[in-house]
């Protein structure tokens, strides 16, 4: 039963992503608290929150689009997960790895936020809309160096698939973060924006926007959004590991690699205040862009 195996594998992947993403979120909260000289919640606090939200009933809604918003978000994160290879040899986690390439992935990744933005829009809460505009603007900012990094990889190795790039690393034995360092730097800088930790937490900015797009959502809506966010973080981290750190042969290595790369935005964020939107955009069009161009030049020349 090929289809059944696939479905089971997909469910396993989703569960893995959910658990890992949630745990990472909890650990980050802990770390942040410690750096801020607080005690902080336990690392499993996110699971408790999720359970509480899952159990709650949503009392009100503002229309169909709001209901579809979380589903759109989930589509984006889950389908992206299906396309990102979790382990080098696939196995249970093969999913749809060979059915799409990086450019497809790039577009798929914006599907969710946009759907979510529509859901947020229907609530009529001005903070949601402001958060959305900020989020989209920031996306335009970090997308540029991120795409430049990816394009550099693509033209360097004449492939646009993740699996192709992973094969390249397997074959040569070096990680791409060493063989195309500028692309890696650009991608990591772009990642700061992608994870929306400080100083790029302008979307949800708790003090200004009352958590922005997710305000007006509670119960299962919020639970879905939260799980989606966790899965999405896991996907993005795995993608970085796949692209630049040679992928992972087993789950332990995967966890180590993802966690270490996760610390970059987290640690940078802990010690940073928040940018204004245009500052955030301009940030990405400064050094990250420069490294992106270097990466492309490097790829084009070598």
């Amino acid at each position, binding site marked *: 039963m090929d289809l059944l195996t696939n479905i089971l594998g997909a469910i396993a992947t989703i569960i893995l992503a959910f658990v890992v993403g949630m745990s990472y979120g909890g650990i980050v909260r802990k770390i942040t608290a410690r750096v801020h000289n607080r005690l902080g919640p336990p690392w499993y606090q996110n699971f408790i929150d999720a359970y509480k939200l899952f159990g709650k009933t949503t009392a009100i809604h503002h229309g169909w689009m709001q209901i579809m918003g979380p589903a759109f978000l989930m589509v984006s994160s889950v389908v992206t997960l299906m396309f990102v290879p979790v382990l080098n040899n696939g196995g249970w986690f093969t999913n749809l790895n060979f059915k799409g390439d990086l450019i497809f992935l790039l577009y798929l990744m914006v599907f969710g936020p*946009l759907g979510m933005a529509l859901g947020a829009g229907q609530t009529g809460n001005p903070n949601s*809309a402001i958060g959305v505009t900020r989020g989209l603007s920031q996306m335009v900012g970090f997308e540029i160096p991120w795409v430049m990094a990816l394009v550099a990889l693509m033209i360097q190795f004449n492939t646009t698939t993740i699996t192709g790039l992973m094969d390249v690393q397997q074959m040569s034995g070096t990680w791409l973060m060493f063989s195309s360092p500028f692309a890696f730097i650009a991608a990591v800088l772009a990642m700061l924006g992608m994870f929306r930790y400080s100083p790029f937490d302008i979307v949800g900015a708790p003090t200004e926007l009352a958590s922005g797009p997710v305000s007006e959502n509670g119960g*299962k809506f919020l639970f879905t959004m939260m799980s989606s966010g966790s899965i999405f973080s896991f996907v993005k981290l795995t993608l970085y590991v796949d692209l630049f750190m040679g992928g992972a042969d087993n789950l332990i290595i995967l966890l180590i690699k993802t966690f270490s790369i996760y610390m970059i935005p987290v640690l940078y964020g802990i010690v940073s205040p928040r940018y204004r939107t245009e500052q955030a955009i301009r940030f990405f069009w400064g050094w990250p862009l420069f490294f992106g161009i270097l990466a492309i030049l490097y790829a084009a020349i070598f």
Partner: protein
Amino acid sequence: MEIIYLIFILFLSGAIATFLLGKVSKRLRDIAFITTLVVPSVLFFTQINIGQTVDFSVLGIHLSWGITNFSYIFAYIVLGLGVLAGIYAVAAMKGKENLGFFFFNYILSIMAMMGILFSRDLISFFVFWEIMTWSSYLMVVFTGKDVQKVGIKYFIFSAIGAYAMLMAIVITYSLTGSMMISNLIFAFPDFEFGMQILIPVLLLIGFGVKSAMMPLHVWAVGSYSHSPMAYTAVFSGALSKMGIYGMIIVMAGLVSRIPEGYWFREVIAWMGAITAVGGTLWAVAQDDAKKMLAYSSVAQLGYIIIGIAIGTPLAMLASLFMAILHGMFKGTLFMAVGAIEKQTGTTNFTEVTGLIRKMPFTFLASLMSIIALAGIPPLGGFIGKWMLYESVIGSNHYLLIIVIFFSSTAAFLYCYKFLFGFFLGQEEKEWAHVKEAPAMMVVPMVILAIGTFIFGVFPGLILNPIDAGLQELGYAVTQGRYWEMSVLFNEWGDTVVLQPILYTILAVFVFFLAFVLTKNFKKTRYVSTKDISSSGEIPKEHENLTFSRGFFQPFLRSVEPLMRRKIDPYYNSFGRGMEAIFDFVRRIYTGNGQTYALYVVVFALLLLIFKDRLWG
């Protein structure tokens, strides 16, 4: 009677009949209008065979009409959109004045576009091109807004384009002695160097104007937003594609056959890229939906131009696919704006909000079109975007790809603005009376929107005729190499398999929708958008909390350096300067008899002085 003639006679007589019947009965007029669009379309798709031609001669010049595989692609756009937007127009324009005139021009421009596609020679091509221009011009000025500015600007630019083209045509005629397009293509590599440069440049100016390529785009925004929306759907969706049609012929037929073609391609590609970026940024800055979509059209045409300029098989597939898809989704969006304008009386984002529950079908059609416009899978827009990126990367245009990516990411901003501005946000009492548009307006929109969905999963349906057309332009077979019915390949063999993707997306979507809804929705009740927690306060009934002014201000502030330079003021001051010069010239005629007498004497003296020069 040749069926080709019959189609044109039907169009022409139908246009006149519609105009005249308008004086008798409105219902008859509407029926005549729809019939005039539908009957020739049916004839075209059932009776016309590819390769069948009719030949005749005018003023001793041999002319020929016939359809080719390549022009057939565009016939789908023209007739498909023409008929659907025509049905829409009947309902949308109901109750307006001068409708006979509107329908007359509508049919004429559809006829002219078909004529362009039928033309196998440059003279018919030009004749139909000009008919298309003036009939669309009459539509631009139809509403009577800013006629002297917007209308004249459109016509000046069209005339510049058309006359550049005409110059190329007469030069071609003097060089080859024939007006046939095929002869031009055949003889082109043997032309002398200067002509090999001049002719494509002139032709590209002509086509660049219609396809709104920067810096020839300045007419587009005003014209698109000033025409009645029912026509703008055709204007932006189909009419601008005629520029693309011509451009492809020039690029594939002429430019690719000379050694200097490389530079042409680079320049045009970058002009397309600038068009795309500029159009997108300005679209983000607009508060009026019509203008926003107009700029967006300019930007989308920029992508198409890039694909044409790159000219690899994949890029051509991408361009043509995008051309068709753009006709569909931009047509839908303009129609949606027209529906909103009809129901609310305004198209400004800062005025209208919260229509989603009042105009659900319009919203649905807009949503799907916007997703297609943004290029998000699984809708059709993605296919074109994907192929374009792959072709740009595959043909080593590294900086170009960044520019395109930037503009298509920035496009998300205005995409969201469109949906949010009209449909989402606070539902205000002011718009409580708004109803869904009539079925005749909604149905064409929904049909087109569903089309974008189908072509997003089975792009092969469109790529198949495109492939046939490309083979005619001299490209190799692309089926199997770059695409299957629902699989795409790039130059390196990487694939996107669309069907499993769609199924996964649907499965996940349905699952989580059900997840959110189960045991939940029944107990969940709908509350109005006034019932929100805005920083702990509940807004009062009269408080409008919709965020719509300065929507993307932070973003616009950060891209401000890019938008500081506008070409429009330069054109305007050039125009003013020319008028001043002309005014000065006018003063040569002083109105004084003595001066005139002096002119006679001076003229005589000049002739006497230069007589040796003049007669050698």
